[in-house]
């Protein structure tokens, strides 16, 4: 029921083997995007930062990033905006046979942290620990490093625990590690009502204005794809080559964690929680983290869908 | 080559090579000044052969470098014969390009109008025929000096400067090359200025000899030789040398 000639193209910058690619692969492979009236073109990159560069350079129309980055860029004058994609965030993983049970047990251990000292989850977990009287950063040996390297180091036992992105955490889980605490748990402990979608689709306001249909169609297609991936195990078998899971168990773990991360809450709840979380992060991370604005910058959340409707 | 070496009448009134160096000092790496030339002024008449004699280290090479325009930091002036004389120089060291064969070294120096000239005769006289395609690193010093001479002769210069051209050669080769130099020099109007420590050589080849004092160089005296070259036999040479010894005692 669509005219292919009228299809608008949306270039999305993705990490080749990243989780976003799984979703978009399912979307395009099943023609969901076309059915909704947009032609999604995947532009693969080899890392997170490159897709940021690509968006700024105008080489892609959309990438996946977090609202903190969007807010900061908006404060600096850019017109990026954000639509929720996933609530999956990193977790602190410990070996299955580790005696650590709670944050307090981390005292005096070697902890690997992916994403650097300004990682949101890391700040939240630190804030939570501090509330309980533990200064993790000071009382532990913290090793910042590249996620794959930290994973390898956790496996080899050089690290007692590792805070890593969710898919690395899931892979570790499949190998018998367990979650000590996740970023979501930390956020909820610090006062959010539910899991907040930290990462989302990021694009320019100007693009959304010029191509309202494309954005709308894409977000609708995304919702349908998420439903498909939530309900169909078969789809995941088809995704296996992209997921590059070493075995069935890893694939299953990744699938389950992915499904957990599908945002389910209303936009209002999300925004309210995000505001709260932002304030909290502004408090912990300071200007270094969030930039000059003490509040989530207006327009960070994409609201065009409702306005356009 | 053969007809290039044939003598032609000396050219008419070309300009002389006019040298007047009023002062030349070097600043040493240690910062000190070293006065090399105090006052060296003489002319080399067009088409004549002048020889410069002076003690080692007195400033002869420096004078030649100034004439060649390689050193412009001096007081005084140098006027070359003619507007753009074709210059050739035989430096005190061979100065061949180590990465080019002997023949390439000679040919590279040729001006465009002589490109592709037949050099076989020249190489033969200089005893270099078997060395044409060898690199300078494979030559003995004497052979390398001969290659440098070949280069200078091949360009058919109108002004030639030679800095001790015939050292490191056995007497037989040296005298053959002296003859060659006279032939090249007289084949067309050539102004020549040579440095040597060998007074026999000077007397044999020159029209005038300029004697320099020890550093800082000044002109000690100028000796003109008027005897035509064919008349300069062994007896004449001994007489002339004795005369020079009388005029400029302590040089020999």
């Amino acid at each position, binding site marked *: 029921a669509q005219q292919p000639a009228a299809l608008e193209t949306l270039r999305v910058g993705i990490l080749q083997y990243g989780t976003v690619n799984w979703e978009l692969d399912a979307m395009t492979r099943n023609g969901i995007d076309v059915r909704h009236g947009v032609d999604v073109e995947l532009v693969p990159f*080899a890392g997170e930062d490159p897709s940021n560069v690509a968006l700024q350079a105008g*080489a892609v129309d959309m990438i996946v990033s977090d609202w903190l980055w969007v807010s900061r860029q908006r404060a600096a004058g850019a017109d990026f905006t954000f639509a929720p994609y996933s609530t999956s965030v990193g977790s602190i993983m410990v070996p299955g046979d580790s005696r650590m049970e709670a944050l307090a047990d981390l005292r005096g251990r070697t902890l690997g942290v992916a994403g650097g000292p300004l990682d949101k989850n890391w700040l939240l977990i630190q804030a939570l620990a501090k509330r309980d009287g533990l200064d993790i950063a000071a009382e532990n040996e913290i090793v910042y490093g590249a996620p794959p*390297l930290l994973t390898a180091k956790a496996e080899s036992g050089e690290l007692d625990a590792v805070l890593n992105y969710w898919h690395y955490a899931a892979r570790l889980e499949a190998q018998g590690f367990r979650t000590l605490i996740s970023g979501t748990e930390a956020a909820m402990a610090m006062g959010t009502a539910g899991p907040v979608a930290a990462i989302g689709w990021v694009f320019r306001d100007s693009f959304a204005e010029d191509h309202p249909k494309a954005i709308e169609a894409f977000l609708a297609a995304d919702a349908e794809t998420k439903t498909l991936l939530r309900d169909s195990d078969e789809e995941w078998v088809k995704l296996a080559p992209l997921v*590059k899971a070493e075995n069935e168990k890893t694939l299953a773990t990744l699938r389950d964690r992915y499904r957990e991360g599908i945002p389910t809450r209303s936009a209002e709840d999300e925004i309210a929680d995000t505001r709260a979380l932002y304030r909290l992060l502004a408090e912990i991370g300071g200007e270094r983290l969030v930039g000059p604005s003490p509040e989530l910058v207006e327009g960070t959340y994409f609201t065009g869908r409702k306005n356009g409707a | 080559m053969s007809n290039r070496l044939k003598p032609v009448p000396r050219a008419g009134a070309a300009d002389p090579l006019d040298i007047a160096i009023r002062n030349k000092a070097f600043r040493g790496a240690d910062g000190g000044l070293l006065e090399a030339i105090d006052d060296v002024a003489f002319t080399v008449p067009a088409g004549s052969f002048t020889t410069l004699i002076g003690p080692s280290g007195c400033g002869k090479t420096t004078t030649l470098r100034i004439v060649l325009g390689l050193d412009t930091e001096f007081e005084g002036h140098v006027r070359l014969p003619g507007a753009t004389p074709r*210059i050739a120089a035989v430096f005190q060291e061979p100065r061949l390009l180590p990465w080019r064969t002997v023949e390439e070294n000679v040919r590279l120096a040729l001006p465009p109008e002589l490109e592709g000239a037949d050099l076989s005769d020249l190489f033969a006289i200089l005893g270099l025929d078997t060395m044409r395609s060898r690199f300078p690193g494979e030559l003995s010093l004497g052979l390398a000096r001969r290659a440098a001479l070949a280069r200078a002769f091949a360009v058919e210069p109108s002004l030639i400067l030679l800095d001790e051209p015939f050292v490191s050669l056995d007497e037989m080769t040296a005298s053959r090359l002296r003859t060659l130099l006279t032939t090249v020099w007289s084949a067309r109007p050539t102004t020549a200025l040579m440095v040597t420590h060998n007074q026999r050589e000077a007397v044999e080849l020159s029209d005038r000899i300029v004697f320099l004092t020890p550093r800082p160089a000044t002109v000690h005296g100028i000796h003109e030789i008027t005897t035509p070259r064919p008349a300069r036999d062994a007896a004449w040479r001994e007489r002339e040398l004795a005369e020079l010894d009388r005029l400029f005692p302590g040089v020999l």
Partner: protein
Amino acid sequence: MALDAAAAGPGRAENRALPSLIVILSLAVLLAVWWVAASLADSRVLPSPAAVAAAFWRDALTGELFFHLGMTLFRVAASFLLAMVFGSIIGVALGMSRQANRFFDPWLILFLNIPALVVIVLAYIWFGLNEIAAIGAIAVNKIPNVVVTMREGARALDRQLAEMASVYRFGRMKTLRHVIIPQLQPYLAASSRSGLSLIWKIALVVELLGRSNGVGFQIHLYFQLFDVASILAYTLAFVAVMLMIEFLLVQPLEARATRWRR
């Protein structure tokens, strides 16, 4: 300290066939060392030659490896050319003129030390995510290194030969070709060898940051998966090309150019 007089002297004739034998032997020893180390380490991090070969075949059969290798080689070649030409010209100019060098030396040090990341990001943002920005960024990263080496070469030039050339009126082109460049040859050799490798390393970063193909792109993907065997497969494919260039092109040329050295 006899400067290897024996090896350079006669006897060179019999050695004509030897070189390729030695190269093969050398590579064999290297392979053996690697294999032993891999079996001792027995970890995913140091895969055995067999594992790397398998990874190689996997991507070679699909043609993927050759595509990415080709893209990288193209970028490397283009920026190598750019960097060598501009770097040599600037370097020789600075080496010859004390004044220019004094003025531009601080700039040179600045450009030498700007992280590749900064140049690459700026290039991508200004010129877009395209080949021209990528190649330009690589070249700009490399040029200062070429300049530094060629400047030393120009400083060490033999003044006596330059004087000879000026007396015999060699002119610019002849002087350059027959007097200057042969003297710069060792510096050119050094800066192009280490240059190629540096350019390829920068190309890896450039491809990581903003290209959707090339060996750098692939290597980083495999790094995310911590698939060292595949990383090595791509690396060695590139190294193989470099070895071929070295032995089939550079060394014969170099042997010709340095024939005159005793």
